[in-house]
C-alpha cells in the first residue's frame, strides 16, 4: 500500500515560553531541601517530612519490574523552579509569558464555558486559582496546596499523607522531599458541584521536575468532578514528574477524577495516586495518557466501606520511543464493593503499552463484584502491547470476570471504509477513534474533542 507522510504543522503543546524562572535549584541534597522549605516558610513538622523523604529516597531501590529507570539521575534534574509570578486571582495579572502559554492551551476559555473553578501551575508553583463566589459561600475550598498548610491547618493535618505513606516507593519518598504546588480541595458534606474544577499543570523549564501534591476531600453525600491536564514542551533534557494525589471520598459521596496527560516525550512520569472510599462512595478514574517517555502510573483505590465502588476508564497511546506502563491497584476491603475496569491501549511506531493491575480482594469483601476488561490495539508489528494483571482473592462468594483482548484493524474493515470513499489513513483513524470512543465520551465535550485531536495528531503519517 502507498506510503503517506503528513507533516504536523502545529503542535500547540510544544510552544516554549522563555524560561524566566527567578529561582532554580538542581539536584537533591539536604541543603536543597532545607532551602525549599525555608523559601516556603513552612512549619518544622513539614521540614521533618521532607528530610525523611530525602533519606528514604536514597535508601529505597528502583522497582525490579516495569520500565528501566536507570537513565534518571536526580542530580541533573532541576528540583525546584520558581516562576516569575506570585499567586494571582485575576488572569490578567499573570505575567504575559506564562499567560500566553495557558491562553493557547485554551485554559481560560474552558473556565468561562464549563468550569466551576480553575487552577494553573507553572513549573514548581501554582500561578492561578479561581473559584466561583457561590461555591466559596457554601464552604468549598479550592486553593494552592502550599497555602492550605497555613490557611486550613486542621484539615491539612488531618488528611495530608494519610492516603499515601512516605515509604510506599522510591519516587513517593522523592515527592515528599520536594513537594511544591498542587491543589487543595474541600467539598463540605452534602455539597454537589454541577460543573467540574480543573487544575492545569505545565512544566516549562528544561530538565526540571514537577512534584505537585493534590489533596481532595469530598465529604459525605457530596460530589465533585475534578479534571487535571498536564503538558510540557519538548526539550532534550530529561524531565521528571513525581506528583502525588490523595483523595478521600466520604460516605455516599462521589468523585470523578479525570486526567488528560500529554507530557512531552522527554518526561518520566512517576506519579502516585491514591483514593480511600467510604461506604457507598464512588471514585471514578478517567485517564487519557498520550505523552511522556516513560509512565509508571497505577492509581490505587481502597474500598473501605460497604458498597463502595471504583470505576476505572483509561486509554493510553504509545508512539515512537514511549513506554507507557499504566493501570491500577485496588483493594476491596468491605462487603459488596464493586470494581469496574475498562482499559484500552494503542501502540504504534515501536511504542510500548503495558496494562498492569493489582487487585486484592480481602477476606471481608463478601459479595464483591469485579469486572475487568482490557483491550489493546496494535497498529504495526514494531510496537508492543502487554497485559499484566494480578489478582489475589481471599474470599469465595464474589463475582469476578476478567477479559483481555488484542484488537486489530482488520483488512475487511479497511476495505469496507475504502469502498465508501475514505482513503486508507482516514479509514484507520476512524477505526482508532471508534476504539477510543467509549473512553473519550467519558470526558466533558471540550476534552473529548481534545482527545480526538490528540489521537489524530498521533496517527498522522501512520500508514506504512
Amino acid at each position, binding site marked *: 500500500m502507498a506510503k503517506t507522510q503528513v507533516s504536523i504543522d502545529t503542535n500547540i503543546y510544544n510552544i516554549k515560553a522563555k524560561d524566566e524562572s527567578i529561582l532554580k535549584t538542581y539536584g537533591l541534597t539536604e541543603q536543597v531541601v532545607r532551602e525549599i522549605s525555608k523559601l516556603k516558610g513552612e512549619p518544622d513538622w513539614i521540614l521533618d517530612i521532607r528530610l525523611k523523604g530525602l533519606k528514604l529516597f536514597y535508601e529505597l531501590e528502583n522497582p525490579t*519490574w516495569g520500565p528501566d529507570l536507570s537513565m534518571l539521575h536526580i542530580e541533573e534534574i532541576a528540583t525546584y523552579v520558581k516562576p516569575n509570578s506570585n499567586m494571582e486571582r485575576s488572569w490578567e495579572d499573570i505575567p504575559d509569558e506564562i499567560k500566553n502559554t495557558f491562553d493557547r492551551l485554551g485554559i481560560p476559555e474552558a473556565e468561562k464555558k464549563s468550569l466551576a473553578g480553575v487552577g494553573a501551575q507553572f513549573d514548581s508553583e501554582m500561578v492561578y486559582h479561581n473559584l466561583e463566589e457561590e461555591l466559596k459561600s457554601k464552604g468549598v475550598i479550592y486553593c494552592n496546596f502550599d497555602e492550605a498548610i497555613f490557611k486550613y491547618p486542621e484539615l491539612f493535618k488531618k488528611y495530608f499523607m494519610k492516603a499515601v505513606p512516605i515509604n510506599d516507593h522510591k519516587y513517593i519518598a522523592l515527592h515528599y522531599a520536594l513537594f511544591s504546588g498542587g491543589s487543595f480541595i474541600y467539598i463540605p458534606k452534602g455539597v454537589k458541584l454541577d460543573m467540574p474544577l480543573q487544575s492545569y499543570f505545565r512544566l516549562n523549564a528544561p530538565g526540571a521536575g514537577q512534584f505537585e501534591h493534590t489533596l481532595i476531600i469530598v465529604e459525605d453525600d457530596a460530589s465533585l468532578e475534578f479534571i487535571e491536564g498536564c503538558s510540557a514542551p519538548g526539550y532534550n533534557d530529561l524531565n521528571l514528574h513525581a506528583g502525588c494525589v490523595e483523595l478521600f471520598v466520604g460516605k455516599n459521596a462521589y468523585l470523578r477524577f479525570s486526567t488528560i496527560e500529554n507530557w512531552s516525550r522527554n518526561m518520566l512520569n512517576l506519579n502516585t495516586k491514591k483514593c480511600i472510599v467510604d461506604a457507598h462512595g464512588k471514585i471514578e478514574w478517567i485517564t487519557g495518557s498520550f505523552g511522556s517517555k516513560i509512565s509508571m502510573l497505577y492509581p490505587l483505590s481502597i474500598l473501605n466501606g460497604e458498597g463502595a465502588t471504583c470505576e476505572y476508564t483509561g486509554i493510553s497511546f504509545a508512539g515512537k520511543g514511549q513506554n507507557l506502563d499504566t493501570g491500577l491497584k485496588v483493594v476491596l476491603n468491605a462487603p459488596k464493593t464493586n470494581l469496574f475496569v475498562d482499559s484500552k491501549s494503542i501502540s504504534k511506531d515501536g511504542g510500548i503499552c503495558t496494562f498492569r493491575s493489582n487487585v486484592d480482594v480481602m477476606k471481608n469483601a463478601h459479595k464483591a463484584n469485579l469486572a475487568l476488561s482490557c483491550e489493546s490495539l496494535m497498529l504495526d508489528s514494531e510496537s508492543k502491547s*502487554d*497485559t499484566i*494483571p494480578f*489478582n489475589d482473592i481471599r474470599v*469465595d462468594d*464474589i463475582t*469476578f470476570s476478567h*477479559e483481555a*483482548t488484542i484488537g486489530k484493524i482488520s483488512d475487511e474493515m479497511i476495505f469496507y471504509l475504502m469502498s465508501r470513499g475514505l482513503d486508507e489513513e482516514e479509514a484507520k483513524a476512524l477505526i482508532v477513534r471508534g476504539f477510543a470512543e467509549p473512553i473519550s465520551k467519558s470526558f466533558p465535550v471540550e476534552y473529548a474533542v481534545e482527545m480526538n485531536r490528540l489521537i489524530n495528531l498521533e496517527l498522522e503519517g501512520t500508514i506504512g
Partner: protein
Amino acid sequence: MEYILNKSKVRTTEHAKINDLHLDLDIPKITNFSNFNVSGIDYKEYDSNEFESRIGLILPKSHNLDIDVTKDGDISISYDIDNILVDNININVAKNINTNITIKYTSTKDIYHISKLNLNIDTSSKVIVNYVNLISRNSKSFIAIESNVLGNLEVNLIDMGGNTKVNNYYSNIVGEQAKSTLNNIYIAKDNDVVDMNYYVGLTNRNDEGYINVSGVLDDNAHKNFKGIIDFIKGSSKSIGKELEKVTLLSDTSITKSLPVLLCHEEDVEGAHGVSTGKIDNDKLFYMMSRGITYKEALILIIKSDFDIALNKLTDKEKEEIENIIEERI
C-alpha cells in the same frame, strides 16, 4: 533448605508475592531407579550426573529415558515411586505421526517426584500426552514440561497427587500453523501449595497456543497461577488464549493469578479470561431438587469442568481418575 523456584519470566510488583515461589524442602538422597514400565515403543535408558529444569531445581543425579517415535500408535509409561524419583524423559516425534502417550506416576508412600519431560514434535504430527500425577497425598511434585512444536501437541496435565505441586510448562511453537495446547486440572486442600508457571510462545504465522487450567481449592490451600501467552514478532494471524477457572470450596483458600498477554505482532487474536468463584448455587439447587445429594451434585459439576483434560483418556483410565477426584473432594 529454602529454595526459590518457578520464577516468572514477566515480573510484577514484589508486593504481589507471585514472581517467585519460596519453599522449604528437604530433598532426600537420590538413588538408582528401576521401577518403571514402558509399553508400545522402544526406549533407551541411562543415568546422568546432572539434572536441571525451568522450575529452578538443580540436582546431582537423574534417571533418563530417550524415546524416538517413528510410527503411529499408543505409548504408555508408568512409574511407581517409593522414595524419590528424579526423571528426565525426552520424546522426539518424527513427521506425520499420530500418537497418544500416557505417562503415569504413582506412589503408596509420601515421596518426592522431580521430573522433566522434553517433547519435540515434528511437522504434521498429532500428539496427545496425558500426564497423570497420582502420587500419594502428602508427596511433593515438581513437574517441568518443555516442548518445541512444529506439528500439533496437546498436553493434558492431570495433577491429582501430592500436597505441594510445582509445575512449569514452557512451549515454543516454532512451525507455521503449529498448535500447542495445555489442559491442566488439579485439586488442592488442607494447606496444599500449587504453583503454576506456564509459558506459550507463538513465533510463526497461523500458530495456535492455548492454556486451559481448571482447579478446585478447599480449606487453606494456596494457589499461584502465572501464565504467559507471548506473541513474538512474526506470529501474525496467530491465536493465543489462556483461561483459568478456579472453583472455591472454602473462603480461607488463597488464589493468586497473573495471566499475562505479551504482544509484539499486530494481526493476532489473543485473549485471556479468569473466572473465580463458588460452585453455582442455582446449578446445585436444580440437581438437588431432582434428588441428587449435595456431594454428588458437587462432583458432577467438578467432573464436567475437569473433562477438558480427561476426554483423551481411555474409559478405564478416566474412571480411575474420576474415582480419585471423588475421593479427594
